[in-house]
Structures are given as C-alpha cells and as structure tokens.
C-alpha cells in the first residue's frame, strides 16, 4: 500500500482512500471456496487497516452475492469484531432502479440489477478478487468480480458454447455508482485456479501464484492477470487463455481435462473494458511495481 501511494506509513496510504465517515464494502470472491477464494486472513487485514484509519467496524461490510459461498469461506471468525459479513439476499437485496437491460439469448428476464448495498449504503468499495481462470471469460479478476459480483441475473450471458462476457463485464463494471465507488483493488493471488474456474472443485487445477496486487486500475490489474493464468496454463501443457479452437471445445470433458473448454472464451473483455474508460490495457503504459518478500 505504501508503494502504491508513495507514503511512508501504511496508515497514510489507507487514509488517502478512506475516512471516518465512510461506509466501505469489501467485495470478496468466494465462488471457489473453500478451495480458492479471497482469503479470510487477507480480508481481515484489509478490515483492520480500515479500522486503523477510523472507519467504524459496523460500517465495513464484507459481501458477496450468495450466502452459501461466504459460509464456505468462513470470514466471520477472522474479521475484526463488529465487521459485517453479508450476502445480497440478507442485506438490502437488489436495487430495482439500477440495472443493465439487454437480452443475449432470448431470455425473458432482461435485467441485471445492482446490489442495493452499493447504491444505497456504501460510499467506497474495495474490490478483492482472486487470481482465477474462468470458463467463459478466460480470467476472472477485478472487472468480473465487481461486474458479475455486484449484479444479479448475470449467468444468462452464457448459453451452450457461447458467452457474451466480452461486452457484458465491462458494461456492468462501468455502471454508476459502482464505477466511482470502487476506489481500490487488492487481488488475492495466494491461491489461484488455472482451469475450470470460477469454481474450484478439482484440486489439481489449483495453484499458488503467491502474490497480492494492489492497484486503482482494474483493467491494468486484469491485464497482468491474463499473463499469470496464461503462463500457468502453458506451463501445464494446455492451450492458453486465448485459445478458441473448435477442436478444444468439449462440454463433457472440460471439467476434468484442461485441454478442453466449455465455452468460447472471451479474454478480450479486459481490452473491451479499457475502451469504456475503465483503465489501461496496454502493458507498455501500465505502471507496475513488483516487490518480492
């Protein structure tokens, strides 16, 4: 955090983003829990830093769409006392007035609504994704964690082998107030998934990037994530994230064999999001500092 902001004291770094009047949502990713997720220890440390700069524990909400996934991740025993751990269903639900309306495959429910926590409660959001492969979008990092993670009715963008994640992820992430309130991203790469994500039911597809990324640009962070997942896949001897060869598409084999895919993957969603003004995609223009510990 000090490297990100240029401060000497981490409290000053956190204070650049958050103050005592903030209500902060920590958007975790638990779809791979308990195998791979935004680790409870990382989330607890984030909450602790917020409290250290004066954010009230009751104004910190670790959240996710589904309660069952958060139960698997077990945040409650680890986060500081008073911090809330809530799913959309048990805390305010979805905002009927804030939605993206479109149809992909003729579905009747054409709206994806933003969580009401985001529209009515939070003043700031910290995005805490995992480093994961995704069967439809190729990678799931910052953009997808707030896009598909803060809206409902999003799985409709995948149907049979086709997926509309190319444009849908960026479109959702660009909706206000989500876009403006997401001020900081911390990507948890302590554990990751290199195939068959976003879930992590097969241990052999888990890996350990052993890194955390701190940033304010979700596109840049996801651009770097593409390289992490792509390199791992190639190291495992399977097609990389950009592969869309029809011969490698097999909905019956993909879950067990990393050579195969379930959907025609759309890693281009990251570049697409850059064109919506969400961040920088060009590696040459991304400011990236690596610190080894």
């Amino acid at each position, binding site marked *: 955090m000090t490297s990100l902001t240029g401060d000497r004291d981490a409290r000053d770094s956190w204070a650049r983003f958050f103050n005592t009047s903030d209500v902060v949502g920590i958007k975790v990713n638990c779809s791979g829990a308990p195998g791979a997720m935004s680790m409870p220890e990382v989330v607890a440390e984030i909450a602790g830093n917020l409290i250290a700069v004066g954010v009230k524990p009751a104004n910190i909400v670790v959240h996710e769409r589904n309660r069952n996934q958060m139960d698997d991740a077990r945040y409650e025993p680890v986060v500081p006392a008073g911090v809330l751990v809530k799913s959309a*269903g048990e805390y305010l*639900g*979805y905002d*009927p*007035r804030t939605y993206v309306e479109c149809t992909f495959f*003729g*579905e*009747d*429910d*054409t*709206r994806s*609504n933003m969580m009401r926590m985001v529209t009515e409660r939070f003043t700031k959001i910290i995005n805490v994704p995992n480093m994961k492969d995704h069967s439809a979008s190729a990678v799931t990092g910052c953009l997808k964690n707030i896009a598909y993670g803060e809206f*409902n*009715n999003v*799985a*409709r963008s995948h*149907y*049979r082998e086709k997926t509309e994640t190319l444009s849908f992820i960026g479109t959702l992430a660009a909706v206000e107030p989500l876009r403006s309130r997401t001020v900081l991203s911390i990507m948890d790469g302590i554990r990751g998934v290199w195939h068959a994500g976003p879930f992590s039911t097969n241990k052999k597809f888990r890996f350990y990037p052993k890194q955390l990324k701190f940033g304010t640009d979700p596109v840049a962070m996801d651009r770097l994530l593409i390289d992490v997942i792509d390199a791992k896949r190639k190291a495992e001897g399977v097609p990389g994230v950009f592969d869309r060869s029809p011969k490698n598409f097999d909905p019956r084999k993909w879950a067990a064999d990393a050579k195969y895919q379930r959907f025609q993957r759309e890693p281009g969603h990251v570049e697409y999001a850059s064109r919506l003004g969400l961040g920088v995609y060009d590696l040459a223009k991304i400011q990236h500092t690596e610190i080894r510990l």
Partner: protein
Amino acid sequence: VIPLLLLAAVLPRVHDGSTDPAGFTRVPAPAVKMRMSEATATRVPWIDANGWRFERGLKKAYYAELPRGSAALAAAEAFAYGVEAVLNPDPADLPELEKMLGYLKSIDAAAMPPMANIGVIDDGSALAGEVMNMLGRRNILYKAVSGPDKTVNLTVKPTADGAGNPNEFAARIREKLGDEKRLVRIYGSYVVLARLTGEGGRARLHLLNYGRRPAADVRVRVVGGWKAATPPMRDVEVAEGAIEFSVPELATYLAVDLSSSGEARKTMESVRAAAEFELTADPAAAQWREAPAVSIAQDTFGKAIAGPPTEVRSRWTERNLYLLYSAPYDELNLKPNPQTAADTVPLWDWDVVEAFIGSEFDHLGHYYEFEVSPQGEWVDLDIDRDHRAKELGAAWNSQFAVRARVDRERHVWYGEMRIPFEAIGVKGPKAGLELRAGLYRCAGRVPNRVYYAWSATGQRTFHVPEAFGVLRLR
C-alpha cells in the same frame, strides 16, 4: 366432500378423490420441473401450468392428483383464471390449503375480462394449445380468439409450418410484439407466471409462483397507465405509461389490484377539543360545527357511488377520539328488535357506519373495528389478521360510547363514537400523532346495497389494512 372447506361456489373446493366429479375435466397438478439431466442445463425450468387450458375455455377443472405441496397453488391457479375447481389434496396440505382458501375468499371480487397482447386463433389443436402454453410460460399475455381481434396487438394463427416448434414460435411472437409493449413483465424469477384482468380504469394482476420456494425480490412492470397498487407495494415507480413495483417475497399467490386514478393515501385530520363533550350526533353542535370533514363517495373498488356523500368528522381530547358520521340515505335497512346493551353481531349486515383504527404501523394486521347503526346498536372488535387465534373479536370491550340519530325529514342519519385512546393502544396522545384508519359504511338493501370506503381497498372486503388511510391529530 369435506364440508369444512366448502366455500363460495366460485372458490375451489375439496373432494375425496373416490370418483371424478360430474362435469369436471381432469387437469394435471401445477408444478415446476427442473429436468437438469435433460438437454442443456438451464435456470429456466419447465412448468406445468394449466392457464392455457383455462384460457381456451375449460371452466370446470378437477385436480385429481395433487402431490404434497401443490394443493394451495392449484387452488390459486384455478381462482386466478376464474375456473370452478375441485381439488383432491394430500391430507398434509390441508392446513396450507385452508389458509389459501381463506385468502382467496378475502379477495374475491367480480370477474373482469382478461387483458392480452396476443390473440391466438384457437382451432382446438394440440399445436394451438402448446403455443398458448409457451406464451404463458414467457408471460406474454394472450387470449384465445376465433379470428382477428382488434383488442390485441397481434393475432396469430399457429400452423404446422410456422409453429412446428411452439417455443421458438412464441419467441418470434415476442420479438414481433416488442418487449416495450408487453402488458406485464416479470423480473427476478423464471417461475412466476402472471395473469391480468381488467376494465374501466382498474385491473387485477394475478401472480402465481410455481417454484418450490418463495420467490424473492420479484420486480413487476405493468403497462397501461396504472398509478396505484393495492395492497401497497414496495419501490413503486410510475412512469412512461407503466407502473413498476417489487414483491419482496412471493410465497404462492398474490393478487395486486391496480387503479388508473392514482389515488394517494387518504389523510384526515382530527382537531383537538378543549374538553370532553357529550355525544349529540349533531353536526350543528358547537364541537362539530368547525371540525373539518372528509367525504366518502366511492365503494371499495374506488367506483363512484351515486347520491350525496357520507361525511366524517373527528375531534380528540387527552383521553378520547371522537368520530361523527353524516350518512344520507334513501331507505334505511334496519335490524329488527334492536338492542343497545351489548355488542350486536353481525351488525354489518344492516345499515351501519364503521371505523377501523390501528395504532401499530409495524403490525398492520392488528387493528380495532367500531360500528354504530342508526338505531344506536354497536359492536367493537379486536382484529388480528396475522394471528387469528390471538384476536379477541367481539369479546374485546373498548368501553367506547355511541349515539345515533335519524333525521327522517332530511333523510340523513348520524352516528357518533367516543373511543378511549387507551383501548386502542395510545398513551398520552399529542398533536401530530398518526393512526391508521379505515372509514366505511354499509347502506341499503340488496340489490341496491352499497359499501362506502374512504380509502378504496380494491376488494369487496373492508378488511385490507394495507389500504387504510391516516388519521392525524391536530
């Protein structure tokens, strides 16, 4: 037949299943089927619904086989389509079914014609039936017609060439119609199906949940200039020729009554009196002369009632709430052998004015009912619609006082009430205090009997606490 559950003729009734009731056609149980092992897994499950059978003319349905958990939905489905139904439920479903029948009875209302976007020319074929089924599955409202119909946006004639795949045919109909014209849209659930009936500035939307669990956060859009919904819904938006609202949790069935009048929640003021006063039932008395009045000139559905309106005034003191009704009449409908020493039950079958008052805004189902007749008969009732076993009913005694007076020359009768605040759960009333209030009157003899409602309930019954207005102390 189980007599306990026999209700009005139009409401579903229970049968023991030993023989098929004469004149009734067997229909399958309403249900959702996930079929996850077939074809591509989808979040849009198959639904067995009978709406298409009813829309094409089936009027008497026998739900002969109702697996556990389906009886209440079957009753609601038949009710929503105005179909006479006989049910053979699983015994374990009887409590839930009885609860549903109670709800259906409470909202029973005169039938209105179906509202539809699509007319399906019905040649009686299986194909036409399946097209209707697929349209209903998508909440594209349709009706069966015999030829081109000018009351709908599109009339379609299913043929083997064009509608060989009824599901794709329904999708093409949707595309041709355009979503913006669809009378009803349902967001947030794939297992809630809707039916819309209406005429003359009012409509009823039937929402049926075919899922196995309550549907949460269902968002509903109804096109057609509707401005108000009863019971009050959450997150209501009225714009661009449509009303939208949310249903936080839809268990099995909900009827939502819509009005194009946009009538806002009614509010009346009660003006403080300097001291307690004797009941006179006389609007010319000093305590009533300057009291503001509200008029009631509509029935429970918001339909205007001919003739001069009923007026209600209110005053309050530290201890009591006073109400005075002025009720013009053509002919009084009085109970023979009146007695005023105790509650008269049922008083509401005769001429009577009524006040439903509640002081709990977080428990709308609990309120108190006060009535007085032209002969000074009275009744006071403790009502708790959420906990019927707990309510005291007529056994409750509020110690309220009444006075009635009939001015036969002017054809107006007056009913006055003095209601102790303490009895209705109010301690130390102050200016600004708000109470929930429904003001009603039953008048005349059948077939000219009318039911006045200050705030329309959207149903035949007065007992819709969600529709109460507000009585504010000043």
